[in-house]
């Protein structure tokens, strides 16, 4: 496995979680799997970091959590995006786009 693409870029994990939860409520492993799938294996999410981030987001009021039955009838903690979280996702997405655009322009100019 190549070292360089295991970690989520610092500071973007929160945004990825919020984005993933904006599609539907999900449990921790579901989020990790979804991030992995959508990024085509570029990002791997470590459960320690993920659960810490979820706790943080929950305390910030951007997600809510609830213990529920899963499809294979086991108990799991499901996370839902709140209205505040949706707004936060918009803010972060907008910022990220601006930055990414700026970097892309810089790199292009250099080339």
């Amino acid at each position, binding site marked *: 496995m190549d070292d360089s693409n295991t970690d989520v870029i610092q500071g973007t994990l929160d945004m990825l979680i919020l984005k993933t939860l904006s599609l539907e409520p999900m449990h*921790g492993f579901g989020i990790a799997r979804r991030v992995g799938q959508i990024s085509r294996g570029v990002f791997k999410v470590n*459960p*320690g*970091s993920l*659960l810490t981030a979820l706790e943080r987001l929950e*305390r910030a*009021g951007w997600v809510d959590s609830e213990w529920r039955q899963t499809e294979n009838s086991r*108990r*799991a*903690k499901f996370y839902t995006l709140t209205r505040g979280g949706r707004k936060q996702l918009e803010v972060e997405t907008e910022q990220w786009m601006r930055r990414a655009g700026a970097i892309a322009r810089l790199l292009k100019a250099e080339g």
Partner: protein
Amino acid sequence: MSVWRQLTRGLRVLTRRADADREVADEVEHFLEHDAAEREAAGLTPEAARRAAQLEYGNRTQMREEVRSAGWENVPASVAADVRYAARRLRRSPGFTAVAVMTLALGLGACTAIFSAVYPILFEPLPYPEPGRIEMIWDSNGGERADVTFHTCREVAERNHSFAATAAADAPLWQPTLTSAGDTHPERLDGQRVTADYFRVLGVRVAIGRDFAASDDVLNGPKVVILSDALWRRRFGADPGIVGRQIILDGELWTVIGILPRGFDNVISAAARIWRPMQYDTAQAANFSTREWGHHLVMVGRLRAGVTEEMAGRDLNEIARNPRGEFPRPPWADLKLGFIASPLQVEITRTVRPALLAIVGAVLLVLAIACVNVTNLLLARGVQRQGEMAVRVALGAARGRLVRQLLTESLLLAGAGGALGLVVAQFAVGTLVAIAPVDLPRAGAIAVNGAVFAFALGVTTLIGLAVGVVPAMHATRSDVQTRMRQVSRHAIGGHQLTRRVLVVAEVSLALVLLVGAGLLLRSLGLLLAIPPGFHPDHVLTMQVQESGHKFDAAEVQYQFFERAREAAERVPGVTAAAFTSQLPLSGDIDGYGVEFQNDPNPGDDGSVFRYAVSPSYFETMGIPLVRGRLLNAHDTAGSARVVVISQSLAERKFPGRDALGQELRLGSGVGKKDEPWATIVGVVGNVKQLSLAFGNTDAVYMTPRQWYWVDNPMSLVIRTSGDAAALAPAVRRAIWSVDKDQPIVRVATMDEMVANSEAQRRFALLIFEAFAVVALALAAIGIYGVISGGVTERAREIGVRAALGATRSGIAALVLRQGLALTGIAVVVGLAGAMAASEALASLLYGVSRLDAATYFGVAGLLLGVSAIACWAPAWRAARIDPAVTLRSE
């Protein structure tokens, strides 16, 4: 919303730790199960799936820890973990911890104690309003400060333009005996007689009742007293109704008119608890043979607004230079040399200031040495721990976390040192007050000063923090792999250099202190070797005072003193007893002008010490007769006036001639045509009166009955066959058998008096000695640490040398040489420093130059010796290094 959530979630975790932990564990477990299921679905065996998950995520405990430690509520727990870890680390190196904590405790404790003691004396403004405006005024007697006479005070009070108010108080204490109904123990109080404006000059108002008024302070005025708060509380149960009531002092009724406020500190006479008006006679100024013309008062004045110290000085000297007819002056108070006036605070601390400043300097040196030592210890420890740090960084420890842990360790060390330092300070302050010279002003205000302690603790903690973080910085700054390789090979040279420089600094500072202690030690030795002019061994002394109206008649007073002397002489073990008006080396000072008949060069006779003594005084004290005869029982009121003078006076006034048969007049007799001359009948050996160092021994002795008034109190001197101190209770009982109401104070052996007369030097010496010992120990530890560390770090090199054929003694010599070279440099630096610093000690030295070569060489030798001992253990260890073991371990 979010703050609310932060709070509630955090509190929930805190209050229901187990639930929260289980929830986290469940979630992690659930995650891993899902993960495993996923992998199995992809075709792995359950076993392989689990291993893959483990490889990818690490173990589950770690995961749980990560999630658990995220919230704010977990900070205390992680700090507690840091503290526990730091404590464990410190416990594991008890030597380092003990030395570091002791060093900090000694440095902090000594520094806090000394500054706590010195601050209220030298630096804190006196506890009065506008204390800088209170001046003390002395009669200038040959450039020395002398007490003023009452009539001089009166003249200054009436003629000056500088002071809003002036006052006088008596220098010897008024000691009335307080008796009260239903109380079987009469109590002797320390009191003070003051003129009416005394408290107004200090700026103190009575808390209850009224202050003295001008109408109280007149001859035969009302018997009124003001009490201190402490006396009022202790003896009168803090009853405000006592004001206006009468109490019994020396068998007479006195009216209490006021109580002083609680915080009042009478710096002029700290022991005084009760005050009465002076009530001297202002009318008889032309009669020079009255008590009002005796030099026995201290004078204070409060400057008017806008008047400076210099202006007041000019004003006073203007008064001194221009006598006026309405203010006659006797020769001994002619003010020809003017006045000496300066702020009260300067005056009351004048005698102790040089010693205290030297001590402050010494304690700063100790603190500097302590700081250097701790820095050195931490640096050495840092070098040892670089390997550990590197390993921890390699295992993934975050830099912040490492720094936090090291800071915790440093803080723990500083905390332990600080706590122990506070204990040391507390103990040291108590010791200081106990060994302080009796005349140390404001001793009552000495207490551990929190601000000073906090400052010293802050300084040492900052040093600890700064130095303690160094290893973490080093470990995390550079590439881990190189660092680990480097550590495993041999340690880093840069630190050794820093540590050597620090050790040189430490040793040279210690040398400065040692030189100071050495110089003081030699001074005191030389001083105490000076013969005082009498035999102080086996002599007991006590001050006996007549008090009360019973003794108003002079004849009754003489009889009391004579009967008391006889009673003392009858006590078994007493071989002789005598009274004297002033006792040598006791702090008594009683000097008078003198004139000689047929004096070829009259005028410049200055002041001679006057002793009114019972005839047996010379034998009792062991003062040798040089020529003529001693005084005897026939020299009484009716017979011809005779005196005995000291050898120094005889040689000064009658060089090459016989002093016997010459005539003189003393004190109030000077210049009076109708006063009879006194004939010199004997010459006795010189006696040191003021101090062993003070040269003037000119003295005139006469019997009490041939003097103008009865001296009161008198000092009883008793020669004993056995232990002098042991006889004190018996002698006291004997005197009280004559009259049980008479105060007896200042009971001491003459040996103690002699030693106490050098109390200040002794005080400074004791402190310097204590500090020098500490400094020497710290320096030795410092040298040992550096050399020992050097041996450890150079083990490989030494192994190679041994393998190449170096002998054990050769290797030991190599290490020793290194240590002594360091000390040598330090000695050179330290000697230069000591030569500069000894300036501060100059006024405390006696008989030795501040650059005394013997002391400097002696101290340098001592330091070299100690450092050789400190180097011995590492040298021995180096010599025993087995090359095979060392080289293989590489």
